[in-house]
């Protein structure tokens, strides 16, 4: 039963970026907050590609660069379009005064965030799983862990992509394999100087690879590489429905990616430090669950807040957590924890880039998914074929080559299919820029 000892103002479930940003916002306002983390420490159950974004992180930790465990500041973004055995790579490089992002290791960085939160008054309970929410009179009143019940005025669900708690209270339906990507990752140890040489960076500078095609040609899936201080993270995420339909093992795809001639030299002779896997929310705007109710709010991956086109997740997590924290502080000030009071969270999310961006791309995954064979298979191969043609020196007259290349587009695929591709592309562009 509820008593003074096991009652607090806010309980946050999940000690990742969303949960910590939420809890620290509440603690800074002088309110009581308990954060419950199921892992041995924050970050111990988390996996991501590799980079946190500087500006959003500064919104929560203004001086994080002074003490946080950062790996490298990213100065280059490469887009690699892999064919079966060839590649076209576009690169954007700029050394900003404020780096756009830093690579981090979650087991170190999330742990650091949790320590900072503790310093600011957040009570952190680790190695504890919340099994269910305590609901009475239509209000979420607290949480039931393996050992005991805790009560609070507000419970914030930051329990990640699988959010069993959001499901328990009917905020989200059953996820289907189209709504998530399964990501596998390997962290490969290499000497810092080798990383510098292979990725053309100086000490503390890093390079990001976004990888299309290769073993994922024709699939709704992407690969990535990030450089850490003493290691390189390489992984891929493929929509679960693709793996199911095609009967593919995710690690087999990763092994193939590692062997691609564009990628293999970058990780040659490296030692595998750790293999990991995690789900990524892919449903976008259309799959956002109910975000608030009486005594409860949902943040971060639990709310499916991921912008997959731009590889943004931790920033949406942190900022949604912050907004939920601010909403909790207002609600505590008024002692009103009703659905109406907490609707402020959704209003502010709608006003922020978070919902606006997800709305911008609401049709993207569906549109590309329907024509994945074309947009992520045929055309990437064709781009590589163009550059192969352009760079080949073989005494064949150039005009003849151009004509042959153009003709091939119309003989490879039916005119009606080309028309459908163009229509889908235009529709997507329209939905992103205008509608």
């Amino acid at each position, binding site marked *: 039963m509820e008593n003074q000892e096991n009652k607090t103002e806010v309980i946050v479930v999940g000690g990742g970026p969303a949960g910590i940003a939420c809890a620290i916002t509440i603690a800074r306002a002088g309110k009581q907050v308990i954060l419950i983390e*199921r*892992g*041995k420490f924050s*970050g*111990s*159950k*988390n*996996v*991501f590609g590799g980079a946190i974004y500087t500006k959003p992180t500064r919104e929560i930790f203004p001086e994080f660069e002074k003490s946080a465990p950062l790996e490298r500041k990213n100065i280059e973004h490469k887009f690699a379009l892999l064919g079966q055995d060839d590649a076209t790579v576009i690169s954007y490089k700029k050394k900003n005064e404020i780096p756009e992002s830093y690579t981090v*290791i*979650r*087991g170190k960085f999330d742990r650091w965030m949790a320590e900072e939160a503790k310093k600011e008054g957040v009570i952190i309970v*680790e*190695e*504890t*799983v919340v*099994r269910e929410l305590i609901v009475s009179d239509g209000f979420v009143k607290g949480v039931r*862990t*393996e050992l005991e019940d805790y009560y609070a005025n507000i419970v914030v669900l930051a329990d990640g*992509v*699988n959010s*069993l708690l959001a499901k328990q209270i009917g905020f989200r339906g*059953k*996820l*289907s*394999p189209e*709504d*998530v990507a*399964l990501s*596998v*990752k*390997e*962290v490969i140890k290499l000497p810092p100087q080798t990383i510098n040489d292979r990725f053309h960076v100086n000490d503390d500078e890093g390079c990001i690879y976004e990888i299309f095609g290769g073993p994922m040609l024709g699939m709704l899936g992407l690969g990535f590489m990030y450089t850490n201080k003493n*290691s390189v*993270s390489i992984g891929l995420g493929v929509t*679960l429905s693709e*793996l*199911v339909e095609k*009967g*593919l*093992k*995710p*690690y087999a795809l990763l*092994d193939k990616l590692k062997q691609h001639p564009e990628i293999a030299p970058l990780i040659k002779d490296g030692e*595998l*430090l*750790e*293999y*990991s*896997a*995690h*789900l990524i929310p892919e449903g976008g705007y259309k799959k956002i669950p109910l975000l608030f109710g009486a005594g409860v709010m949902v943040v971060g991956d639990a709310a499916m807040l991921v912008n997959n086109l731009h590889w943004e997740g931790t920033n949406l997590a942190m900022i949604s957590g912050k907004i939920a924290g601010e909403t909790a502080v207002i609600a505590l000030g008024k002692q009103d924890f009703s659905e109406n009071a907490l609707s402020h969270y959704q209003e502010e999310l709608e006003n922020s880039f978070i919902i606006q961006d997800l709305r911008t791309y609401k049709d993207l995954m569906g549109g590309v998914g329907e024509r994945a064979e074309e947009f992520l298979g045929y055309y990437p191969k064709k781009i590589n074929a163009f550059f192969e043609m352009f760079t080949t020196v073989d005494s064949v007259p150039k005009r003849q080559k151009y004509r042959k290349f153009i003709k091939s587009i119309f003989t490879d695929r039916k005119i009606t299919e080309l028309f459908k591709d163009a229509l889908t592309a235009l529709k997507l562009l329209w939905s992103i820029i205008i509608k």
Partner: protein
Amino acid sequence: MNELEDKLYTVKYTPDNVSHLQPVQECCKICKSKICSVICPAGVYEWDEDKQKLIVNYENCLECGACRIACESSSIGWEYPKGTKGVTFKQG
């Protein structure tokens, strides 16, 4: 050792003595795809044809949740391991 075993060898686990994954074996028997045994990134599930039983190597689970969503009859009882158990990622 096969390649997946090499990968899993790098992962730190604190295994429980009971499984946090509980497939409904009656459903597994009539399941055609046995898709869990394909997509699981840790090879947790193996179909034993002789015993007509799904073997669950739960101690290798990376806690990603893919099997729960991919299972065609949604019949994998899936919960997080106890707070002190399961996987601990150091390089996530």
